């Protein structure tokens, strides 16, 4: 109809042109313009402005291929479409002062004039209609010269994929100048094809083409295709349904109760009378202290209630109960099957196959991801424990305040960040500063307390615990109880995303690198420096080392300071991803001791192995039971207790005289 009218117009125009060539341009303007006539044609629907009937009007405008279409739709969408009551013509209105509007013609773009509001009627699309207009506008935006607008349009399609968008999207791929946007358009077009294309063969082909893709969007597109609904059929399954599989009641997938519930829901079987209903019915039929001949006081067992209810049923005062035999009969009389929502079998088969192959890929990806996670957790434990590996592992001093040294390091980082706003500079400064602060604290503690308790390890434990609670409370008094932010510099933000399954944040990579550096530094100090040599000598035989000219007190002091200083640096690293609170250290202290004990005291490789084992074990349990990280820690501790049974001296045990006792 529209086309015939357009054709009529064209004919009219050409004949007019033939008749009066010199005046043709002037004449054309006088004629009703194409967009205006189109709007006039749809006038009734547009004025009605109902979501149910508006679709043809929007389609007519969007599909008119007139250059003004986009402007009309945009005006409509923002409620700037006005109708002049005198002649019913549509214009774009612009509000002026004093309740009058300046109208613009869509076809010529010229100002028509200014009119008071009472002469006009505003077209107000509701939100449903605006959404439909937005969908229609997408096709214009897809070939907009501004790439940002095109990206927006693609985002809109991703958010609300619709069959209608497929054709304009495909059409816009060819002319797309930007390679990145073109790839994205192609991908979205493929996804739309899978979901909405009318051509089945093409859908299957596209599904097969995308079957190795790990993207979440692919799975989100494929999953609705294989969605099933459990249905019950009396007798044979009707033809034309796409059956996924038949199900027997009592299988794992379908319990008998659920199956019967399905029958009741489909009105294929009478509902069971529940215990609550029995109770309500009984309560409604109390008659002189009795129900169905049974005294009320006796109704406190299910058996007595059943008797009373049976009496009510016999008196036709209540619906009969369904017996177990009747349930079995109904279940036997029906066939249960999972039916695909998608009617085409070819598509569901292809989608199932694609999902299976994607799942395999996802499992591989998840394994890799889990391994990375576990490695990163292991490096965090290693960082927290490496200072302890020196003080506890090498010196045999148990320092319960180790966690508070970690906390001091983190707070040092926070304070430095308050003074120096540049995160990179402040971080680089915080690391040596944290080392200095905790080194000093460690040396002070060794001088004042630990030195006096070297042959009383249990008392060292308690004394350092006293220091630990004092330091924790001091931190609380200074910094308050709420968490303080220690912000990572910008270049550590974000994550290295390999695909939608495998990703790892840069901070975790940095911590992993830091752990490796610490390992190297530790090995270097212990094996290649004078301090390391003296430390090992004092550890092995204090008296002998002393007689060889080593000052054991000085060595102990420096070694303890070194271990504490490393804890401080670890604190800066941990503070970058954990909340900096006064309890930061105590969250790690038990795990750190576990790491050292499990790994084997006195051996840095043991600490490394212990951290790796604990990290992997904890991540493994979390993977088995993802909702519950608390359970993972519980199981980890249980595991460690059992592990100690088999290797009481840890993974890597010192042998011979060095093992001592």
């Amino acid at each position, binding site marked *: 109809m529209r086309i015939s009218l357009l054709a009529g117009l064209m004919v009219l125009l050409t004949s007019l042109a033939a008749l009066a060539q010199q005046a043709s341009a002037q004449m054309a303007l006088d004629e009703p313009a194409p967009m205006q006539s189109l709007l006039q044609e749809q006038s009734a629907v547009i004025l009605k402005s109902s979501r149910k009937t508006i679709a043809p009007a929007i389609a007519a405008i969007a599909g008119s291929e007139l250059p003004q279409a986009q402007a009309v739709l945009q005006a409509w969408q923002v409620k700037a479409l006005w109708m002049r009551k005198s002649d019913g013509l549509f214009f774009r209105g612009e509000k002026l002062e004093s309740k009058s509007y300046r109208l613009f013609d869509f076809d010529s773009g010229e100002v028509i004039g200014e009119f008071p509001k009472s002469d006009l009627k505003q077209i107000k699309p509701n939100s449903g209609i605006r959404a439909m207009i937005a969908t229609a506008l997408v096709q214009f935006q897809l070939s907009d010269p501004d790439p940002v607008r095109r990206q927006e349009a693609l985002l809109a399609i991703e958010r609300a994929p619709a069959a209608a968008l497929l054709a304009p999207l495909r059409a816009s791929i060819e002319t797309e100048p930007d390679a990145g946007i073109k790839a994205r358009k192609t991908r979205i077009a493929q996804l739309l094809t899978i979901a909405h294309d009318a051509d089945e063969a093409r859908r299957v082909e596209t599904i097969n083409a995308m079957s190795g893709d790990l993207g979440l969007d692919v799975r989100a597109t494929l999953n609705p295709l294989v969605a099933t609904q459990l249905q019950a059929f009396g007798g044979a399954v009707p033809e034309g349904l796409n059956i996924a599989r038949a199900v027997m009641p009592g299988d794992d997938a379908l319990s008998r109760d659920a199956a019967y519930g399905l029958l009741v829901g489909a009105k294929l079987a009478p509902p069971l009378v529940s*215990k609550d209903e029995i*109770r309500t019915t*009984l*309560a409604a039929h*109390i008659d002189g202290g009795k*129900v169905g001949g049974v005294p*009320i*006081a006796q*109704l*406190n*067992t*299910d058996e007595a*209630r059943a008797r009373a209810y049976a009496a009510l049923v016999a008196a036709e005062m209540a619906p009969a109960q369904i017996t177990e035999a009747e349930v079995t009969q109904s279940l036997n009389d029906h066939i249960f099957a999972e039916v695909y929502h998608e009617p085409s079998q070819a598509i569901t088969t292809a989608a199932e196959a694609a999902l299976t192959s994607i799942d395999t890929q996802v499992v591989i990806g998840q394994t890799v991801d889990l391994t990375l996670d576990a490695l990163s957790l292991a490096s965090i434990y290693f960082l927290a424990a490496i200072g302890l590996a020196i003080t506890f592992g090498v010196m045999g001093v*148990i320092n*319960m305040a180790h966690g508070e040294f970690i906390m001091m390091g983190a707070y040092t980082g926070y304070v430095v960040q308050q003074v120096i706003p540049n995160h990179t500079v402040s971080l680089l400064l915080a690391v040596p500063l944290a080392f200095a602060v905790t080194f000093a604290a460690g040396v002070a503690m060794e001088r004042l*307390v630990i030195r*006096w*308790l070297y*042959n*009383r*390890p*249990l*008392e060292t*434990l*308690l*004394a350092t*615990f*006293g*220091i*630990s*609670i*004092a*330091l*924790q*409370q*001091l931190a*609380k*008094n200074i910094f308050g109880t709420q968490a303080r932010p220690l912000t990572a510099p910008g270049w550590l933000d974000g994550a290295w995303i390999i695909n939608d399954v495998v990703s790892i944040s840069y901070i975790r990579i940095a911590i992993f690198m830091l752990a490796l550096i610490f390992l190297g530094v530790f090995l270097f100090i212990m094996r290649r420096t004078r301090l390391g040599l003296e430390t090992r000598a004092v550890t092995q035989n204090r008296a002998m080392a002393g007689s060889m000219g080593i000052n054991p007190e000085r060595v102990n002091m420096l070694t303890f300071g070194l271990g504490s200083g490393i804890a401080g640096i670890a604190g800066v690293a941990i503070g970058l991803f954990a909340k900096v609170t006064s309890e930061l250290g*105590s969250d790690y202290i*038990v795990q750190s*001791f*576990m790491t050292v*004990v499990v790994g084997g005291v006195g051996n840095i490789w043991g600490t490394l192995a212990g951290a790796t084992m604990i990290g992997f074990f904890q991540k493994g349990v979390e993977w088995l039971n993802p909702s*519950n990280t*608390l*359970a993972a*820690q*519980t199981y980890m*501790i*249980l595991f*460690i*207790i*059992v592990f*100690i*049974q088999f290797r*009481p001296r840890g993974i890597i045990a010192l042998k011979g005289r060095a093992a001592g006792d």
Partner: protein
Amino acid sequence: MSDSFLKRNPSVLIFLAVLALFVLAVTLLAEGAGAGVISTSFVKTLGKTLCLALVAVAMDLVWGYTGILSLGHFAFFGLGGYMIGMWLMYARTQAIVMSSLAEASIPATESEITDAIGNQIFGVVGSSEFPLIWIFADSLVLQLVLVVAVPGILALVFGWLAFRSRVTGVYLSILTQAMTLGLALYLFQNDSGLRGNNGLSGLQNLPGMDHVPQATLSIWFFWASAAALALGYLFAAWIVSGKFGSVLRGIRDNEARVRFLGYSVEGYKLFIFTVTAIIAGIAGALYYPQAGIINPAEIAPVASIYLAVWVAIGGRGRLYGAVIGAVFVSLVSSWFTGGQAPDVNLGFYTLKWVDWWLIVLGLSFVLVTLFAPRGIGGLVDLWSERRRPDRHGADLGPGAGALREKEASK
């Protein structure tokens, strides 16, 4: 036997006499039974303190006498509390549910009652099913058995695993601390069956005793706590006074030597570890009805370390020291942290004890460890040693063996 036992341990008689006097005084002065000088809440505080003293005695047995620094005894204490709390909560909820269901026109069936109780108790963690561990919750007798059995069996299994693989010293401390942490984390979960971090609450109300005012109940619990402390103290004194006690001290001072003498060191340790766990469980079962609420935070490892702190400050290796430490530190702590202590104005800074008490406690603990390893109880020695000839000089402390200074330097 009993005669000679008391004769050999005069401190037991003194302790019992002091305890009896204390109980008498509190009873006469309390709101529930007498003058009303002491408020009900303070009677509860005193009753709780006696329970803490009992668990400190247990800690002293295992640490001061046997040398096992267990950082898990407060977990056993909490488990005892959970076990009695299950019955208290179940029975009380049952009474409430019964009275509300009694108004219905049809009497409720067993399963309806159970469902209603389950809904009441577990609604807060989004469940209404009774977990398996609540299977005995309706029976007071069985739950009382569990108060003893659960900490006892846990200690037995854990101790057997730990001692047979010869985990000693600080390693054992760390391992017990890990056990405590594991238990606390487990109880923090909502699906642990013990209401997650909500814990059990409303324990101060004894089921079926609604007509008895809290003032009277608090006195009853105070008496029960005092009786338990007296019995526990007698039991502990009896254990450490005989040959058995000598072996325990031998293990503390030199485990290898005792083993070479032919004693089954692991058996002794396991026995003392389990028995003290049971005492801790009983103390917990008396403590939490007075506290009214128990949640997993009570079991956190730090609580067990505080227990060690009390014993150390009171004086290890002497039972009255443990009691003095627990009573002194916990009462002083609650005085300082309760906001009753006056703030100290230093001119430039006002010292608020609520904030600074823990620092003072931590530092004084370091000082006690360094300078007064015998704790407050060591003051008694100043008096008793004056009556004895000074034979040897200062000892080297429990960790360095039984040698005294002069013997060691020979």
